[in-house]
C-alpha cells in the first residue's frame, strides 16, 4: 500500500515538473539569454521605467496621433515636416528621452507621409554633417540651402506618481505629447499615455 502511494506521489511530482517545464516559464536567476525586446518576458520594475515602457508608450502615442489625422498633408506630393522639440523628464530617474522619441520618429517615418526635420532647439541641427554638406553644396552652386522649416513640432513631458499600500507599491508614468501647428502656433493634438505598474518587487514578464 505504502509502495503504491510512493509511486503515485512520484508520478504526480514528475508530471508537475514536466508541466512546468512545458509552460516555458522565464528562468529568473538562470543563465543569460536573449529575449524579444518587445516581448512579454522582459524584467518589470515597479519603481522605475523599463525599456518596454518607452516602447509601449511611444506605440500608443503614435497610434493615437495617426488615428486622429491631426497631421495634415501640408505639401501635396511631398512629406509633411515634423520637428521634435523638447521632451522634459520630470521623473526622479535619469534617462535619455530619445528612448521614447526614437520609436515615435521611426513610426512616423514608416508612414511615408511624414519626414522628420533635423532642425533642433536653438536652430541647431541633429546631424551636423548633413547641415555642413548642404551649406557646402549651396555655396558651390551659388544657391541657398533648402528651407526645412517644420510644419509641426512635437513637445513632450514625462511625469510620474508613486504610492503604496502596505508593502504593495504602485508607480504611474505619464508620457504626455503635444503637437503644435507651427503656422498657427496652436496645440492641435495632445495625448497622455499612462503606464501603471503595481507589485511588491520586480518580476520577469507581464
Amino acid at each position, binding site marked *: 500500500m505504502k509502495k503504491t502511494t510512493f509511486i503515485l506521489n512520484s508520478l504526480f511530482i514528475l508530471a508537475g515538473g514536466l508541466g512546468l517545464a512545458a509552460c516555458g516559464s522565464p528562468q529568473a536567476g538562470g543563465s543569460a539569454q536573449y529575449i524579444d525586446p518587445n516581448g512579454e518576458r522582459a524584467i518589470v520594475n515597479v519603481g522605475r521605467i523599463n525599456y518596454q515602457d518607452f516602447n509601449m508608450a511611444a506605440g500608443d502615442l503614435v497610434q493615437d496621433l495617426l488615428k486622429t*489625422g491631426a497631421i495634415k498633408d501640408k505639401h501635396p506630393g511631398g512629406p509633411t515636416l515634423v520637428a521634435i522639440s523638447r521632451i522634459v523628464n520630470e521623473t526622479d530617474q535619469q534617462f535619455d528621452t530619445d528612448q521614447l522619441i526614437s520609436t515615435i520618429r521611426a513610426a512616423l517615418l514608416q508612414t511615408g*507621409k511624414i519626414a522628420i526635420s533635423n532642425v533642433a532647439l536653438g536652430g541647431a541641427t541633429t546631424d551636423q554633417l548633413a547641415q555642413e554638406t548642404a551649406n557646402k553644396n549651396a555655396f558651390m552652386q551659388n544657391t541657398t540651402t533648402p528651407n526645412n522649416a517644420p510644419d509641426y513640432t512635437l513637445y513632450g513631458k514625462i511625469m510620474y506618481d508613486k504610492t503604496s499600500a502596505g508593502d504593495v507599491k504602485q508607480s504611474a508614468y505619464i508620457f504626455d505629447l503635444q503637437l503644435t501647428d507651427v503656422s498657427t502656433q496652436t496645440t492641435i493634438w495632445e495625448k497622455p499615455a499612462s503606464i501603471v505598474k503595481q507589485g511588491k518587487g520586480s518580476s520577469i514578464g*507581464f
Partner: protein
Amino acid sequence: MNKNFRYICAALLALAAAGCATVNTVEPAYPVAKVDKVPDKRIITNNTLNEIAYVVEVDRAKNAGGFEEVQVKLQNTKSGAKLVNYAFEWFDQNGISLNRDPQWHSLSIEGGEIRSIGDVAVWPNAADWRLTLSESVGYSPDMQQGPVGGGYHHQ
C-alpha cells in the same frame, strides 16, 4: 477541530468572493454605428485563455488619418478580473510581415467585461494582420495572496 474547519471555510469563501467581480453594462438597443465586421479564423491552443479573452467581434476601418485600423472586442467570460497580453502583427499584400517583433501590451479585463483593443497600421502597404493573445505571467489583479512581483495594471 470542527470550529477551526468552519473558520477556514469562511475565510476561503470570503477570499473567493473578493476575487469574483463582474460588471454590468448598458448600451443602445439599436446602435447607429455601422461596423465593418471581419470574418476571422481562430487558432485556439489555450482554452482557459479563450475564456478570459474571448473574441466577440473583429472590425476594421480606414481612420481619419487614412490608415488601416483593426479593432477586436474581447470579453472575459470568467467571474474575476484577469490580465491578458496581446500583440498585433501586420502583413503586406505578399504576406510579408511589416513588424516582425510586434509590441506586446497588457490589458486588464473585469469579469464579464468587454474591452476593445486595436491597432493602427502605420505602413501604407499594410493589408492583413494577426492578433496574438497570451495569459499574463506576471501579476494578476485577483490574486488572493497579493502580487508577488511587479506587473502592469490598467492602462
